[in-house]
C-alpha cells in the first residue's frame, strides 16, 4: 500500500513524523491560545488539519534545498531540515526561537519583525521571503534554483501555494518559465477547498488543481493531504524528477481548512461554510490517520496510539496533556524566548532601505 519512497521509512522515521505532526499542531494550538490571551498581534492563518502537507513534503529534502512557505505554512520555517536535529544549530531551518520571536514581533526574528507573521525567510537557511502577494514567490523560487544550477548545484525548491492562488498571473508566468528551462521547482498546491470566503468552483473550472500542470506539459500529482506518507511519496517523486534535471511539477495535496481563513474569520466561516462540509472535511485528522497507518505498519501498538489524543480536537478543547512532552517543551522554549525578547527600537524603521 505504501509507495516505494515511503516503504523505505523506518520505525524511527514514523515516530519522528508523528512527533512533527504533533509539533505543527501544537504550534497552531498554542498560538491560538496565546492570541486569545492577548499576547499576539496580527492575523493567525491556522494550518490545523493541513499539517501532513508540511511535514510530509519537507521530510525528504536535502539541507541545501530551498523552500518558500506562505501564510498558512508557519511550521515549515522550523520543520525545514528538522531531521538534522531539532536543536542542531547548524540545521538549515529556523530555530523555534526565531520563529516565535517573529510571531511575537521581537528582535530575535530573522527579519527583526519588520514584516509580519509568515513573511520571513533566511538566505542562510535557504528559505525565500514571501510578500503578501499570493503566488508572488514562485518566480524567485525559479530564480534561486536557476542560480544554483549555474553554480553547479543540484538544489530543488519547494514552493507552497493555496489552491486559490493558482489563479494569479504570476503563477502562470513562473511555472511556464520553469517548464521552459526545466528548473527544479516543485509547486505544492494546498487545496483546502476554500480561498478565504470563496469555494474552489469559483476559482477554477476543474476539480483537481493538479490539472493546471497539463497546460505546461509537466507532471501534476495528487496527494492525500491528510496522509503524511502519501504527501512524502508524491513530493519525493516530484523532487527526484526535478533533481534529475527533468524539470518542474505540481503536487496538489487535498485537504480542508479547519477554521476560518484567519482567526478574525472564524465566526463568519462558521456561517458561510455548511456544517456538514466542515465535519466531513475535518473527519480525517492527519494525526489520527498517521496513527492508524503506524498501527497497520506495526510501528505503533493500538495502545500506544491512544496516548496523546490531540487528534480530532479543536484548539479550544485540546490541552498540553494531549501532546507528547517533547513537543510541548520544544515549543515552550521558543515561546519563552520570544516573550522575554525585546521589541526592536523605532529607529530601525528608517534603516535598511538601501544597502550602503
Amino acid at each position, binding site marked *: 500500500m505504501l509507495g516505494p519512497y515511503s516503504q523505505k521509512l523506518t520505525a524511527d522515521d514514523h515516530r519522528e513524523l508523528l512527533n512533527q505532526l504533533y509539533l505543527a499542531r501544537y504550534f497552531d494550538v498554542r498560538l491560538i491560545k496565546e492570541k486569545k490571551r492577548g499576547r499576539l498581534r496580527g492575523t493567525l492563518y491556522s494550518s490545523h488539519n493541513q499539517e501532513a502537507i508540511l511535514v510530509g513534503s519537507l521530510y525528504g529534502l536535502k539541507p541545501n534545498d530551498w523552500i518558500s512557505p506562505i501564510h498558512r505554512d508557519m511550521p515549515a520555517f522550523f520543520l525545514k531540515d528538522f531531521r538534522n536535529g531539532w536543536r542542531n544549530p547548524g540545521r538549515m531551518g529556523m530555530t523555534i526561537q526565531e520563529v516565535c520571536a517573529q510571531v511575537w514581533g521581537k528582535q530575535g526574528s530573522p527579519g527583526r*519583525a519588520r514584516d509580519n507573521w509568515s*513573511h520571513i525567510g533566511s538566505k542562510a537557511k535557504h528559505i525565500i521571503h514571501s510578500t503578501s502577494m499570493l503566488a508572488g514567490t514562485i518566480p524567485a523560487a525559479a530564480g534561486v534554483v536557476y542560480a544554483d544550477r549555474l553554480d553547479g548545484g543540484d538544489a530543488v525548491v519547494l514552493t507552497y501555494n493555496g489552491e486559490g492562488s493558482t489563479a494569479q498571473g504570476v503563477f502562470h508566468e513562473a511555472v511556464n518559465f520553469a517548464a521552459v528551462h526545466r528548473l527544479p521547482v516543485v509547486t505544492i498546491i494546498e487545496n483546502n477547498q476554500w480561498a478565504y470566503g470563496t469555494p474552489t468552483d469559483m*476559482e477554477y473550472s476543474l476539480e483537481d488543481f493538479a490539472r493546471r500542470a497539463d497546460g505546461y506539459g509537466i507532471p501534476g500529482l495528487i496527494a492525500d493531504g491528510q496522509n503524511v506518507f502519501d504527501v512524502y511519496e508524491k513530493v519525493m517523486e516530484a523532487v527526484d524528477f526535478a533533481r534529475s534535471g527533468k524539470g518542474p511539477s505540481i503536487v496538489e495535496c487535498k485537504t480542508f481548512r479547519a477554521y476560518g481563513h484567519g482567526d478574525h474569520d472564524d465566526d*463568519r466561516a462558521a456561517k458561510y461554510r455548511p456544517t456538514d462540509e466542515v465535519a466531513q472535511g475535518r473527519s480525517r485528522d492527519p494525526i489520527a490517520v498517521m496513527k492508524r497507518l503506524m498501527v497497520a505498519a506495526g510501528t505503533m501498538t493500538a495502545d500506544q496510539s491512544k496516548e496523546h489524543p490531540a487528534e480530532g480536537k479543536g484548539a479550544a478543547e485540546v490541552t498540553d496533556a494531549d501532546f507528547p512532552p517533547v513537543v510541548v517543551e520544544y515549543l515552550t522554549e521558543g515561546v519563552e524566548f520570544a516573550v522575554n525578547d525585546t521589541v526592536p527600537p523605532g529607529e*530601525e*524603521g528608517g534603516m535598511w532601505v538601501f544597502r550602503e
Partner: protein
Amino acid sequence: MAATAEAPQSTKKNYLTALKEALYEEMAANSDMVCIGEDIGILGGAFGVTDGLQEKYGRERVIDAPISEAAIVGVACGMCVNGKTTMVEMQFIDFISCGFDQIVNFTATYHYRTAGEVAIPMVIRGPAGGYGGGALYHSQMNEAWFANSPGLKIVCPSTPRDAKGLLKSALRDPNPILFYEMKELYRQRAIEEEVPEGDAALVPLGKAAVRQEGEDVTIVTYGTNVYMCLEAAKTLEAEGFRAEVIDIRSLVPLDEETILESLKKTNRLVVVNEAPRTCGFAGEILARLAQEAFEYLDAPPVRVTRLDTPVPWVKPLETFVLPSVDKITEAALRVCRY
C-alpha cells in the same frame, strides 16, 4: 420601562456602514451596475463592505472573482465598454499592484485612446492606509502611482458622510476612479455621524472641505491624517496659533482654489500625508502651491509624510516612519514661528 427601550434610536453611522449604504443605494438605482472582487459575495468582503449584497442582487451582479487582480480590473473594464457601471473591490489596496497594467494602461486611457467614444464608469475601491499594524502589504497608500497616470480620478474620504457621498458620486461619474478607504476609520466610533439617504447624500468630487478655520497656518491633508491634523491644531491653539485644516477629499481633480484662498489668509503651508515622501501627493500639493501661492508664502512650505520606507510591522517602527500628531505639531510650529 427600561431606559434602553426608551432611548431614541441613534441614527449615527460609522464610515463602513456609510460605504455599504452607498453601494446598496447605487445598486438599486442603477440596474447596469455590477460589483466584482475577491470574496465580496458569499463572504461579503474582507471587511464586510459588501455584506449581503450578493444575496440581494445575485451572483451575476455581485461576482466572487478568482484571485486575479489583473483579470478583475480588465473584465470590469470590458463590462464598462459594453454599457455597465462597475465597482471593483481590492481586498486591500496594496494588491492593486497585481492589476497595475490593466488600470494605468488599459482602463485609464480608454477614453483618451478612443477620442471620447468610450467612457469607463468604474470605481476601484479598497481598504488603505497604515497605523493599524498591517505591515508592508496591508498599510499602503499608493495613490501617487495613479496620480501620475493620466485618466484616473482619485478620492479619499475621511468621514462617514463623505464616504457615502463621494462613493455615490464616484459611482455616477463616467470615469475610472480610485477610491481609497481608510480602514482605520471603518469602525471608528468617535467619527460616527448622521448620514443622509439617496441623492441628498451626494458629495461632489473635486471639492475640498475646510475642517477647521484658522488664520495662522494652512494644514492640507486627507484620509486618516485629517484627525491627526485636527489634534495637532489643538496643541497649536494652545501655543497661540490657529490652524486652518483642509481635507482635500478629492486628489484628482484637486480643489486648488480652496487651498489658495486659505493661503492668502494664513501665508503658511503644511501638507500632511502618510504615503512615502518622494513623488507622493503631499509633494504635488506643495509643488503646486509653491508656484501658485509664491507671493503669499511667508515661510517655507513643508510636508510631513511617511519616510521613504515601506510601513514596518511592529509598533515602534511603524510609528517611527509614519506622520504623527507630534510630527505634525512640530512641523507646523516651526512654520508658524518662522
